[in-house]
């Protein structure tokens, strides 16, 4: 288990948050489905390098981020195709385009690798944003574990209305029916081409936000802020991020 705690916080941090962040670090440090652990941890480190990237800053300020060429300021551990995915997703997600995604695939990134990269990036963003928001130092990244990726694509994943293939609502099987089946939302299916990433990310979502049962229960306050206050924070963050979903 990767060591992660909030013992240094000047206030109590919910134990389930520390546990799920430890689980996330453990998942990040383990061989993935398509990427080895060294690459996964390097992606997490690259997420942290984006804030100092001059090219990303110039693209963010440009009318179109696709009209600004240059080289990313990078930690240096990853190939250029992965670096560009990490930097664009972290720095300017609202202006990602389907054509850019297609170019990523044409450049040699497989759709399975792409989805796993997104899972690692967004898991890191969640843990790091939590620490930043709380005024705490970023947690030390875990050491990568040895081992090979499992390289198993779910046979029921296929191209649907998203850019990436996914396990559609009618294609979910067994234990995945509650996760990707009709009760679930499209964003829950977004990473389902790499189920381990989808499961890990959504487990974190249930602790940070609410689980499915809690989401449908408007009569109980499960957190120290009310449901209306939760949705206000969530909605304002998403509006600033210009996320139309």
């Amino acid at each position: 288990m990767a060591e992660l705690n909030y013992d240094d916080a000047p206030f109590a941090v919910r134990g389930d948050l520390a546990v799920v962040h430890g689980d996330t670090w453990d998942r990040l440090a383990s061989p993935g489905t398509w990427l080895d652990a060294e690459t996964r941890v390097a992606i997490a480190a690259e997420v942290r390098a984006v804030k100092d990237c001059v090219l990303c800053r110039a693209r963010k300020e440009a009318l179109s981020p696709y009209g600004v060429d240059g080289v990313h300021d990078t930690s240096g551990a990853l190939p250029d195709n992965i670096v560009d995915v990490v930097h664009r997703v972290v720095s300017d997600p609202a202006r990602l385009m389907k054509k850019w995604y297609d170019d990523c695939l044409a450049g040699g990134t497989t759709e399975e690798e792409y989805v796993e990269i997104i899972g690692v990036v967004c898991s890191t963003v969640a843990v790091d944003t939590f620490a930043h928001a709380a005024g705490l130092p970023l947690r030390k990244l875990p050491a990568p574990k040895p081992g090979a990726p499992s390289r198993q694509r779910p046979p029921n994943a296929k191209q649907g209305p998203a850019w990436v293939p996914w396990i559609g609502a009618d294609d979910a099987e067994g234990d995945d029916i509650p996760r990707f089946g009709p009760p679930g939302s499209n964003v829950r299916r977004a990473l389902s081409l790499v189920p381990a990433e989808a499961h890990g990310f959504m487990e974190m979502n249930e602790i940070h936000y609410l689980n499915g049962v809690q989401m449908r229960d408007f009569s109980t306050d499960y957190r120290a802020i009310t449901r209306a206050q939760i949705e206000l924070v969530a909605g304002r963050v998403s509006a600033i991020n210009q996320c139309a979903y």
Partner: protein
Amino acid sequence: MNVIIGEVRDGGGIPQGDVLVAFAEAVVGGDEDRLTAARAAVVDALGTDALVDACAVASMFNAIDRVADSTGVPIDEDRLAPTADFRESLGITAFPSGRGGG
């Protein structure tokens, strides 16, 4: 809903909504002094447990927005019609991420 898109600054009638909106804006805003002040305001108004939960929600949506944007997932069909009017009136359909595949 106008509070969410930043057109109204009063918290929308939600208790301590103005404090929480200011905190949400500061978390994704990049101004450390502003974030420090917003964090202190949440603690003063609601306490440290509320601060932790606000941090958890803000950080998760900062991440899940990126999952949605980078995978091109469409809005769920059962939510399209009921939300069409307010998405249009609030300008959400004009967000770059809402303009489709481009």
